[in-house]
């Protein structure tokens, strides 16, 4: 197990390197000129002298590869440069905004699990009956509706018309409800359907029939023999949902005025603020890889077949 974790962790720097090169060169493939973007964001008229000055200052007069290596050297010392737009160091600002995003994504994850699991169990227990149809309808809507649109609808209903919830900003729990629901609805819809399908599949297996034959109460069979086995695909799916949820914060944070890293990144993308986009991408890759690693560890621990085969191999 330890060697498995170590191997995965060793892969992280390689993935970061690949991602950094990809984003660095992709950003510069476009027709736009970073020196021009820099001047525009600093509101300095782009005279030829000003452009020349900016090119030298940003190191754009050097070949692309040299620029990348220079950037990489600083990045290895955790210096990701200064934002064109805010003129502040990039990493401290991203880390400043990160907790707000993690809070939002974390609550969305809790909502996803807390709602999708009972819904999925309910639907599986009443296959093809009314509850199953209801869950199907909710899932259909949840998967089809873009999260930003749902966000606006929620604001219209709960803030503008009913006045129950604050439309924007970060504060108490009331602030979290709408953005978290807007982000979570799609993941929880998928999850509920997944759990239902998985439970129905397990229900037909022989060990469940055997448990029933042993005369165990139906509730016990469902909990200990069906549900626990059906959870395995859910654990895998959660790894992917984490990415979805964090990705969802990008737009939702802008709509709900949530002071997180997603909103910061969206304005950086609009402004073509290269240093911020690069650092943000690497931060997201790190979070994504680490979360997936944690999910894999939980999966291995939860499934004795994997755990035991890994131990047997060592």
């Amino acid at each position, binding site marked *: 197990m330890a060697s498995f974790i170590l191997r995965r962790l060793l892969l992280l720097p390689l993935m970061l390197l690949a991602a950094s090169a990809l984003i660095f060169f992709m950003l510069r493939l*476009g*027709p*736009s*000129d970073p020196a*021009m*973007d820099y001047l*525009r*964001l*600093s*509101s*300095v*008229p*782009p*005279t*030829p*002298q*000003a452009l020349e*000055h900016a090119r030298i200052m940003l190191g754009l007069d050097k070949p692309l590869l040299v620029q990348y290596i220079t950037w990489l050297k600083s990045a290895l010392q955790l210096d990701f440069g200064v934002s064109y*737009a*805010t*003129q*502040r160091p990039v990493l401290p*600002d991203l880390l*400043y*905004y990160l907790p*707000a995003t993690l809070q939002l994504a974390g609550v969305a994850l809790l909502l996803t699990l807390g709602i999708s699991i009972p819904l999925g169990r309910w639907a599986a227990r009443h296959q093809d009956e009314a509850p199953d149809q209801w869950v199907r309808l909710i899932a259909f809507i949840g998967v089809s509706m873009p999260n930003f649109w749902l966000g*606006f609808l929620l*604001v219209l209903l709960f*803030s*503008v018309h009913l*006045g129950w919830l*604050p*439309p*924007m*900003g*970060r*504060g*108490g729990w*009331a*602030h979290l409800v709408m953005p978290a629901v807007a982000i979570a609805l799609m993941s929880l819809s998928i999850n509920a359907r997944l759990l239902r399908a998985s439970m129905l599949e397990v229900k037909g297996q022989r060990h469940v029939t055997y448990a029933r034959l042993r005369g165990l109460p139906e509730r016990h069979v469902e909990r200990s023999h069906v549900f626990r086995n059906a959870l395995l695909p859910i654990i895998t799916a959660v790894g992917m949902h984490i990415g979805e949820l964090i990705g969802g914060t990008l737009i939702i944070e*802008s*709509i*709900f*005025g949530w*002071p*997180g890293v997603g*909103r*910061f990144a*969206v*304005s950086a993308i609009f402004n*073509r603020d290269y240093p911020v986009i690069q650092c943000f991408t690497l931060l997201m890759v790190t979070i994504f890889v680490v979360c997936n690693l944690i999910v894999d560890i939980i999966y291995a621990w939860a499934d004795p077949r994997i755990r035991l085969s890994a131990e047997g191999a060592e």
Partner: protein
Amino acid sequence: MRSLLKSASIVALVAGLAGPAAAETLGFSWPVNVGPLNPHLYSPNQMFAQVMVFEPLVKYQEDGSLAPWLASAWEISEDGRTYEFTLRDDVTFSNGEPFDAEAVVANFDAILANRERHAWLELTNQIQQVEVIDEHHVRLTLQDSYYPLLQDLSLPRPFRFVAPSQLIDGESAQGITAPIGTGPWVLADTRLGEYDHFVRNEHYWGEKPALEGVNISVIPDPNTRAIAFQTGGIDLIYGVDGPISPDTFQRFEQMGQFTTEVSDPIATQMLAINSQQEATRDQAVREAINHAIDKQTMVDTVFYGTQPTADALFSPTLPYADVPLAPYAFDPELARQLLEGAGWRLGDAEGVRQREGARLSTDLVYVGNDAVSKSMAEIIQADLARVGIETRLIGEEESSVYARQRDGRFGMIFNRTWGAPSDPHAFISSMRVPAHADYQAQLGLDDKADIDAMISDILTTTGEERRRELYTALLTRLHESAIYVPLTYTNAIAVARPELGPIPFGAMASEIPFERIAPQGQ
């Protein structure tokens, strides 16, 4: 008012947007934090906030004139090269430091130490020396006479004054210790990504603001801003560059329960036509384009009537711009006649005119992700097609569009003047610079060299009468060349709770006169 502010502060408290909300604090919003508020630097310092805290020697007025401000009087030498300013003697910085000749010179020195950064502003290149005469008198010496000196001094940046104790080793290029100015507001608190809180400067030398403070929430999204206003999170929406979309403005107007206002023209939004390109080199084609575009429909459908149509490059309300010019009226029939007369005949099945085998075709460059520009471009394309001119729309990234402006790779391109107090002098000055769309567009004119010489004359002449004559000649020449299609005059909009009373507009596009907002019943 009390109940409004009370309820506003409760909402704000519940919403947690407003941070330290208090009674008589106005809730406002801006897309980003106001920045470190260094009066001598640019982005990320937000101009409207720099103006709240820092003041100029002379203040730009709505009629384009300049009024005494931190300087109570000034004298100009015969040759126009020396200016002597008398400073007010009752002004202190918000930390109690005196505002005197030493402070003025310290600030000028800090600005000029970073001359390269301000090279775009002609005044920085012209200043030779700034010296203390006595406690309340300062002398400014220029290399040559430069008439817009006072206009440049009135700009939001860089010629404004921070307490000298806040300069770092006498300089401001690398930052200042704290934003201590002489203005009506003091920055009290900032939370990155959330808000900036300003309070009234209790030691202000002028008339003190009626409001106790202004709380500025960070809201980048226009729809979110509209909702924050509607639900009571903020009390005022104000701005020039679409703080909310035109249709949202119209909705608030129709609701009838809010104050909605539109300012006088601030700048001109126009189309620059490139006189260097094949089709548009022809004067008749440029005139036809001017006659073929239906500006009124554009204003009604794209701007929901919030902006007036423009007839000239500069609004006649600007200094020297009140020149009698016959507008190019919307007249597609006349446009067709002009084209026929110039030999452009309808021939092919697509309805595009031709002359000697050349198609009457041009392109229109706009910023691709700007929905308003895109709609305007489509209207222009359709209008021109009606008279037989083919227009290819080129929607590109902002910096690509800038690059095309610089090297003239456009047939037509959207452009706008810079607004008060840069119009008209700084804008015409830039027409001589190759990196500007105006220079590129005019380059195909036979008398471009004469136009540039005329501009240089305007900027250096010391005689008022002569300057007016030159302006009239220049603006008439540019109008007759049909290089520009003036489209609309942009303006500032304001949406506010009625309890705030009428909302005044700033004389400059970049200024928001919070200090003149007087809630009713006070």
